[in-house]
């Protein structure tokens, strides 16, 4: 066990705990921000400004009766929420939280793993997350939650393709898939004449950024794409039969994947830890917070899509746009290299 491996293990544990803490307080943050947007106060009973609300929710969900339907396929019924809850934070392993600091003498680099296929790893974990939804829908033994689960799985799959394709534009420019490499490329400054612009990919890939954002919102079943939530009223979303802490696994998995996709978007498009004054993980936090605020803002204002509009948007609008974007970026890159 060489020192490097040990330090990355320790850093991984740190990241996981920070993430779980963030996830709990994300629910609180969302309820407070939504309340402010809706002219009301939000949780303020538990703790000074309602700060203990996540703990209270956790205890409530843990103590609630946990019902397993009689005909349910028990083993898969228990496996599904675990699958989606465990897979969500695993994707955070590739996100660089900084270069490296030395602690008690030896170097600790602030990312759990810098693998060459980092972005593809992120997509792979995302695509594995679909199983939680499908098996959850199947295992609860009622035909409606099965169909609800299939519909939201179809939504996640089609938007995952759009997500992957929208990243290709960035990879063409950055030339590498590893996030550490992408962040370092974005830290140089681009000086177009007088003004000094950070060389963030949002500036060179605006269309890809917008499409990535839409696909990210759809991927985590949030805001205008929150079909499973509406499904619970109509056709019985995949987590209708779940209750108690098993339901909280699904519920919290959604929040973790929201945080992680925001971190990922901040790293890819807004230059991760690179900031005007001093680079550091706080810049990443600020950018991710902007994305999370955007998630909540969408949720309070925008009405919900209908299922066929949602799928139509993915295949008829976003897919052509994303392909055009790849084509354009490719040509610009070739023109840039003078090969054209």
């Amino acid at each position: 066990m060489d020192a490097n491996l040990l330090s990355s293990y320790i850093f991984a544990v740190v990241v996981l705990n920070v993430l779980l803490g963030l996830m709990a307080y994300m629910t609180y943050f969302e309820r407070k921000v939504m309340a402010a947007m809706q002219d009301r106060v939000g949780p303020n009973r538990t703790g000074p400004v309602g700060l203990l609300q996540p703990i209270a929710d956790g205890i409530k969900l843990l103590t609630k009766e946990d019902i397993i339907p009689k005909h349910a396929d028990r083993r898969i019924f228990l496996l599904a929420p675990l699958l989606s809850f465990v897979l969500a934070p695993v994707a955070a392993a590739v996100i660089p939280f900084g270069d490296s600091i030395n602690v008690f003498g030896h170097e600790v680099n602030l990312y759990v793993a810098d693998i060459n296929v980092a972005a593809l790893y992120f997509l792979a974990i995302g695509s594995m997350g679909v199983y939680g939804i499908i098996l959850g829908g199947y295992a609860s033994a009622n035909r409606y939650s099965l169909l609800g689960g299939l519909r939201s799985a179809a939504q996640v799959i089609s938007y995952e393709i759009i997500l992957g394709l929208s990243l290709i534009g960035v990879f063409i420019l950055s030339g590498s898939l590893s996030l550490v490499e992408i962040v370092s490329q974005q830290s140089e400054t681009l000086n177009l004449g007088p003004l000094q612009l950070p060389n963030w990919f949002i500036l060179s890939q605006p269309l890809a950024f917008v499409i990535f954002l839409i696909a990210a919102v759809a991927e985590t079943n949030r805001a205008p794409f929150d079909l499973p939530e509406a499904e619970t009223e109509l056709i019985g979303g995949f987590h209708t039969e779940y209750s108690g802490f098993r339901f909280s696994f699904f519920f919290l998995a959604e929040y973790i994947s929201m945080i992680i996709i925001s971190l990922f978007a901040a790293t890819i498009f807004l230059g991760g830890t690179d900031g005007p004054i001093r680079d550091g993980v706080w810049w990443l936090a600020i950018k991710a917070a902007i994305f999370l605020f955007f998630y909540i803002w969408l949720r309070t204002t925008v009405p919900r899509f209908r299922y066929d509009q949602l799928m139509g948007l993915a295949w008829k609008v976003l897919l052509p746009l994303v392909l055009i974007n790849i084509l354009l970026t490719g040509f610009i890159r070739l023109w840039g290299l003078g090969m054209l």
Partner: protein
Amino acid sequence: MAAEVLVFNLLSAVAIVAAAAMITMRNPIHSAIALVVTFVNVAAIFVMLRAEFLAAVQIIVYTGAVLVLILFVLMLVNQDDLPEFHGAKPLQQVFGFGLGIVLLIEIGAAILTRTVVAEPGPWDEQGIAQAGGHIQSIGQVLYSGYVLPIQATAFVLLLATIGALFLGRPDEDEEPTPTRRPVATISLAHTRGADDAPLPQLQAANVKHEAGDRDLIMARDADEFTSIPGEDDEQKERSE
């Protein structure tokens, strides 16, 4: 480097056990999950064999899409009319297993008595690192010698999607499910028309333009817009 062998053996053991479980499980959904476990282990083995890009592709394409589609079809087919596992004729079972074992022995013999012919190429650990990583190295090799196969695969994929669309089409003989009626006719006071039929020329005072390029007609008293334009000139003729 015994650890590497140990991990490899562990992964392949789990893969083989899961594959065996897949063919012996009664419920096809359970066998699908066993297959997912197998594929994930195979992806891990790819990572060990210096094929990281392929591992990611294996998970994204195989486990994330193809198997999910299979699960879709499995779940859409009603569970109760799936055939029994052991309903098949036992002779076929025994023959299958027997053939399997015979084949295993043959291939085992072949593996043990093989002689290495080719000499190792340039792409070992340093070669890949020098090219900039797995993706870059595969990219170079892929786009230097294999451009034609890529076009062919793209063409095959296009054909597959068109084929799937064709197969997915509901066949004609079924009565079509009721679709929504054509969009509303305009009100009694206006000639009937399709959705975008232009409104007859209304005095500007009446028409109030609203968002979503839709206008409201503001009636000032009760008997405005109550007669159909076409009809009242007929009434006049009839009454003269």
